C-alpha cells in the first residue's frame, strides 16, 4: 500500500471516530441540549464591557446589557474604556446619565485582559459577566447562565454565539453557519466536561475563582481561551448553555477575518504551550481537552497539506502535458484518458460528506437557524464543508508563523 493511501486511511479513521463521537453525544443527550439548571438563589453579577474604539456598537451593546432580564439590584454594569481614541467615551458618558447602574472605568490603553482585571478589582458582584463591546446578549441569556453556579466547583459558563450581521453578505452567512456548528459542538463537549473556551461575547465567571487563578493573562492574545484552561487546570468546571444566546458582529471581509482568526489561532497555540505539562494529566483537561485541541490543529494541517499535494501534483502534470502537447502537436486529451472508475476509497469521503450534510441540517433545524431548508442554505453548507474548512488551515500556518516569530500583536 502506498504511503499516501495510508495517510488518507488514517485521516479517514480519525474523521470517522470524531463523527461517531459527536453523533453518539447528540443521540444520548438530545433531550438535555437546550435545558439549563434553575438557580437556587439570585446571584449578584457585575457585567464588564471592555471597549476600545467601539463607537459604532457600544451604545447598542450597553442598551442590550441594561435591558437584560435580571433583578436590577443584583446587577452592576461597568464599561471599561481602554483608552479609546474615538467617541466611545462620550457615548458611555451620555448613557451614564440615562442609566444609574452603569459605571465607567476610564483608563489608558493596556489591552483587554488588563481592562478586565482592573474591572474585576472594583466589581462587587459574586459573578462576573464579560460582554464584548460588539456583542448583544438576548434578554434572558444572563438568567439562563446563573443556575450552573449552584455547583460549587463551577468556574465559568459560556453562551451560544450567533452572527448578527449574517445577512450582510455571503461571507458573513458562511461564518454564521460556522458559529452555529461550533456552538453545537461546544455544547456536546459540555456533556463530557470539556468546554474549552468561554467566548468573549458573553461568558459568566465566578469572581473568586478568577481571582484565585490570577485573573486574565495579559500576555496572551486570547484571554478567553487562557482563562478557561486556567480554570480547568485548577480543577474548576466549565459549562455551556445552548439556550443563552448572544449575537455578535463578524468581519464581512477576508482581511479582518483572517486577522481575527490568526489571533484566535495564535492564542490557541499560546495556550497549548503554556499548559503543555498537563498533557494527559489533570482529568478531562489533560486527558481530552489538550490532546483534542492540539490534534485538531495537527490533523487539519496534515489534511490540508495532503490534499494540496494531490491537487497540485495533478494540476502541474496537466499544465506540463498541455504545454508539451501544444509544442509537439500531440492531442491535448483523448477519450482513453478519461477514467470513469473512481477509487473505492473515495467512498469514505462521500459517506462522511453525505452524513455531515444530513447532520448539519439536523443541527440547523434544532437551533431554528432558518425556518426551512432552502437550496441556498444547502449550497452554503456544501461551500462551508468543501471550501471554507479546506482552506481554513492557511490561517493556522499564519498563526504558527507568528507564534514562531513571537509576534503577539492583535
Amino acid at each position, binding site marked *: 500500500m502506498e504511503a499516501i493511501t495510508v495517510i488518507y486511511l488514517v485521516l479517514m479513521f480519525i474523521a470517522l471516530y470524531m463523527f461517531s463521537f459527536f453523533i453518539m453525544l447528540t443521540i444520548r443527550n438530545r433531550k438535555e441540549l437546550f435545558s439549563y439548571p434553575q438557580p437556587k438563589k439570585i446571584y449578584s453579577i457585575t457585567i464588564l464591557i471592555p471597549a476600545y474604539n467601539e463607537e459604532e456598537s457600544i451604545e447598542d451593546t450597553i442598551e442590550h446589557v441594561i435591558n437584560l432580564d435580571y433583578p436590577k439590584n443584583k446587577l452592576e454594569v461597568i464599561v471599561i474604556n481602554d483608552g479609546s481614541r474615538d467617541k466611545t467615551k462620550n457615548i458611555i458618558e451620555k448613557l451614564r446619565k440615562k442609566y444609574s447602574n452603569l459605571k465607567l472605568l476610564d483608563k489608558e490603553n493596556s489591552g483587554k485582559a488588563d481592562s478586565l482585571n482592573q474591572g474585576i478589582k472594583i466589581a462587587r458582584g459574586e459573578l462576573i459577566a464579560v460582554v464584548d463591546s460588539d456583542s448583544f446578549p438576548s434578554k434572558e441569556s444572563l438568567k439562563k447562565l446563573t443556575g450552573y453556579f449552584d455547583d460549587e466547583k463551577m468556574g465559568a459558563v459560556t453562551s451560544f454565539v450567533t452572527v448578527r450581521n449574517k445577512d450582510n453578505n455571503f461571507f458573513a452567512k458562511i461564518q454564521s453557519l460556522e458559529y452555529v456548528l461550533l456552538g453545537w459542538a461546544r455544547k456536546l463537549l459540555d456533556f463530557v466536561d470539556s468546554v474549552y473556551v468561554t467566548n468573549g461575547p458573553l461568558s459568566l465567571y465566578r469572581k473568586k475563582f478568577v481571582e484565585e487563578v490570577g485573573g486574565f493573562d495579559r500576555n496572551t492574545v486570547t484571554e478567553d481561551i487562557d482563562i478557561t484552561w486556567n480554570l480547568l487546570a485548577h480543577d474548576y468546571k466549565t459549562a455551556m448553555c445552548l439556550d443563552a444566546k448572544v449575537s455578535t458582529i463578524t468581519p464581512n471581509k477576508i482581511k479582518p477575518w483572517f486577522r481575527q482568526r490568526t489571533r484566535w489561532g495564535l492564542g490557541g497555540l499560546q495556550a497549548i504551550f503554556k499548559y503543555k505539562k498537563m498533557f494527559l494529566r489533570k482529568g478531562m483537561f489533560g486527558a481530552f481537552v489538550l490532546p483534542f485541541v492540539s490534534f485538531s490543529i495537527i490533523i487539519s494541517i496534515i489534511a490540508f497539506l495532503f490534499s494540496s499535494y494531490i491537487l497540485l501534483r495533478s494540476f502541474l502534470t496537466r499544465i506540463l502535458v498541455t504545454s508539451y502537447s501544444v509544442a*509537439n502537436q500531440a492531442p491535448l486529451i483523448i477519450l482513453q484518458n478519461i477514467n470513469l*472508475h473512481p*477509487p473505492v476509497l473515495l467512498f469514505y469521503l462521500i459517506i462522511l460528506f453525505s452524513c455531515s450534510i444530513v447532520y448539519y441540517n439536523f443541527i440547523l433545524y434544532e437551533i431554528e437557524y432558518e425556518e426551512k431548508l432552502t437550496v441556498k442554505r444547502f449550497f452554503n453548507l456544501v461551500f462551508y464543508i468543501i471550501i471554507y474548512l479546506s482552506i481554513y488551515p492557511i490561517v493556522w500556518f499564519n498563526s504558527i508563523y507568528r507564534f514562531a516569530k513571537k509576534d503577539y500583536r492583535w
Partner: protein
Amino acid sequence: MALGNKHIFWQALIIALVVFWTGLLLGTYFERSRIDQIQKFYFDSETEIFDLNLASDILGGVTDNCDLFIARSINFADRIYFEALKLEKYDDSNKLSEDAVSLHKRYDLLRILLWKSTIDNKRNCVTKINTVVYLYDYADTPLNKKAIQQTMSNFLINLKEEHKEKIILIPIAVDTGVESLDVLRSIYGLEEVPVIFINEEAKIESLDSLQSIENFLE
C-alpha cells in the same frame, strides 16, 4: 460527567472501527472483483497468443499466410492494448490490493511475446507492417517524466487511429521486472525510458522528434 457519556469515548471507537473495517473489506472485495474481470480477458488473450505462436511455428517460412498473421497480430495487439488500458485505469483507482501490478506484468509478457513473434513474422513476410514499441515507466515517476510519457502516449494513440491497419502498437512497462524485456532492451540498446522504438531500427527518445515518427513508418 454522566456515566453514559464517559463510555462514549470507547463506544465511538468501536463504531468507527466497525465502519472503517467494513469499508476496507468491501473496498478490497470490490477492487478484487475488478481485477478478476480483467483476469478473465487475460486468460483468453494468453490462449490466443500461444495459438498464434504455435500456428506461426508450424507454418514457419510459408509466406502465403503472412496477411492472415499480420491481421491477427494487429487485432491481438489492439485487444490486449485496450484490456491493459482498462487494467491500468483500475490500477489507478485500486488503492488497497496489489493484484493489478502482477496482472500488468503478465500483460507486459504477452506484449513481449507479441513483439517477438512479430519480429519473426516480419522476417518471412513480404507484407509491410510497422511495429511501434513504446517503453515507459509504470511506477510513480517525477512530474516532468510523467507528463512526457502522457504526451507520448497521447501522440501514439492518435497515430494508431490514423494508421489503424499499418501499425502494431506495443506499449510495455520497463519496471515490472520482466527479464525477457531486459534482454531485448540490451540487444537493441534501449537504455533510455520513455522511448518509442519503430521497426526495430529508429529510436525516438524526446518529444522534439515526435513529428518525425511518420518518416520511419513503411
